């Protein structure tokens, strides 16, 4: 299987605390992987290392054929814009922008024309079933709808990988199930791989593979 992202001997220390301690991980194309662990187990830090949001203390991260270790922050930002999608527990939508504008937001600094990015944003909103809510601002959307907008935003660049940190953490169980179903549909229809960081067994059960972490190590 094609590996989308690979990490080898990944270590992240904050002073004397080692949050991630020698992690090896591989995620294959079109695979949904759940990264499980209790609070403080290092799973979010591990996801941030894979996304290039944190610099590893040691170890390597490779995305397809590209070595990410050692790249500067702006190069990593550009890499994220072109290759991966991120979904957060708190959605992190821009409150002043409409759903459509939030979806197109990652492309604002790019050279892509307004027409093209609007077209793309509309199609992503359609994919998550929110075409009719395009003009609504986040404050007028439910939690589930906001998370779907965030997922549409993560899809704007046709990513091969979406990294999701507790994507159902702020949602009721029914809405959470809908979001997970959406992940599966996107995996099936678009071949997107997912790494879902969660402490919820029900979420993990829907994954193709579950990786467990404890005290910074994969167990």
């Amino acid at each position: 299987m094609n590996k989308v992202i690979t990490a080898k001997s990944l270590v992240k220390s904050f002073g004397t605390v080692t949050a991630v301690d020698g992690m090896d991980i591989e995620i294959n194309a079109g695979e949904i992987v759940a990264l499980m662990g209790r609070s403080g187990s290092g799973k979010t830090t591990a996801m941030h290392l894979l996304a290039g949001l944190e610099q590893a203390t040691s170890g390597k991260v490779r995305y397809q054929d590209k070595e990410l270790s050692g790249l500067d922050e702006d190069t990593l930002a550009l890499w994220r814009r072109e290759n991966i999608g991120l979904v957060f527990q708190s959605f992190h939508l821009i409150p002043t922008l409409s759903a459509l504008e939030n979806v197109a937001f990652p492309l604002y600094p790019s050279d892509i024309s307004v027409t093209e990015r609007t077209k793309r944003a509309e199609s992503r909103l359609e994919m998550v079933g929110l075409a009719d809510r395009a003009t609504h601002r986040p404050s007028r959307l439910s939690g589930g709808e906001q998370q779907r907008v965030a997922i549409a935003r993560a899809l704007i660049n046709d990513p091969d990988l979406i990294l999701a940190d507790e994507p159902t953490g702020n949602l009721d169980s029914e809405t959470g199930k809908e979001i997970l179903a959406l992940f599966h549909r996107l995996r099936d229809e678009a071949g997107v791989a997912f790494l879902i960081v969660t402490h919820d067994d029900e979420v993990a059960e829907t994954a193709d593979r579950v990786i467990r972490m404890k005290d910074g190590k994969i167990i």
Partner: protein
Amino acid sequence: MNVSYLFRELTRRSSRTLSAIFSVAIGITLFVSLQAYAGGYREAARAPLSEVGADITAQRQGDVPEGFTGILFPHSVAPLHRDEIEAIAELPGVEGITESLFFWSFEEDSFVAGLGFDPAADFGHGRLRAGLIEGRFLDVDDSGVTLVDASYATQNALSLGDMVIIIGNSFEIVGIVDTTRTGQIANANLYLPLADAQAMSAIAPNVLAVHDMRPDDANLIFIKSEQTQAEAVVAGAEAILGKKALVSSAESFGEQLGALFDIIDRFGVLVGLVAFLFAAGILVRAVAAGVWERRREVGMMRAVGWEKKNIVRQLLGETLVIALVGGLVGLLLSWGVTLMMSQATVTVPVPWELSPSPHFLPGGAEEVAVVVPLNAKITLELALAALGLSAVAAALVGLWLPGRIANIKPAEVLRSE
């Protein structure tokens, strides 16, 4: 920079935007209004001289007359000799010069202040032409005729064609003039040809007793000079006329306006700048608070692929718009303030030396003054300077912003709660 995002941020976070715009506007208003106020005062200080179309007056103090009969000169207007006048005319920066001869004439039962002048001059007392109420103005080759001040004519029931006597010489009144047109400088009752005044003064015993009066001397000159060289001309004239020189310019009239003008003139720019910097500080603080408030948003921008420069440009764009709108609102407010200021008047005292009248006569010790509107105005240069300062405020934010954003770690602000 994304314009629609910028517009939405500014309009949908309206209270923050308005408070930042208001801060800049207040700073600009203080800066511009103070400068316009100082400019109005400076212009008022020039009024006595500008009303006679001159930039500088020069005279020389002399001795107190020994007796008060016949023609004599007040002690502030000793004769200026022909060679001195010509030397002043040759000073670099002097564009024109016209001369007058001011005198008092004590008759048996009356007193008259007279002034001989060149009617061909288009500045100095030549400006009286515009104040002609009745009759005709003097011609260059006139002799034995005079103009009379309107209020003096009323007080003494004089009219056109009447004769007035100065130490036995008859002068026919050919015109009545409003002397307020000459900035209250060397205001006289009678205005006659310079040659007639010189001829009478050159033989007057009480003049000759204390002065070296020559037939072609004057005792008051008006100088037109290039603005940039006015100070040098003042210094040059003082050097030529010696220690007793009395050389007046707009600056010396400014000094007459007192401490308030001095403070505004000297510290107006400084106080305005301090006020503006205070406002700029508020703007920086407002933007800082905004960035702090939006740190999760900035973290998310980094996470979804915005480079640091993209974020700086976006936030700087917002700040620039705030600074520009604040600057324009400030200019509008300043315009209102200066409009109100323009309703006020400034009283510019004219020193006794420039308009001497005998102290022992009724009203003789009263200070003469010119009352002019406070013409506070916003010039194009001032408006551009104000907008430039707004841009400086935005640039200050621009210098500070990258460091602030660099301190925001997306991994920290996006971590699950």
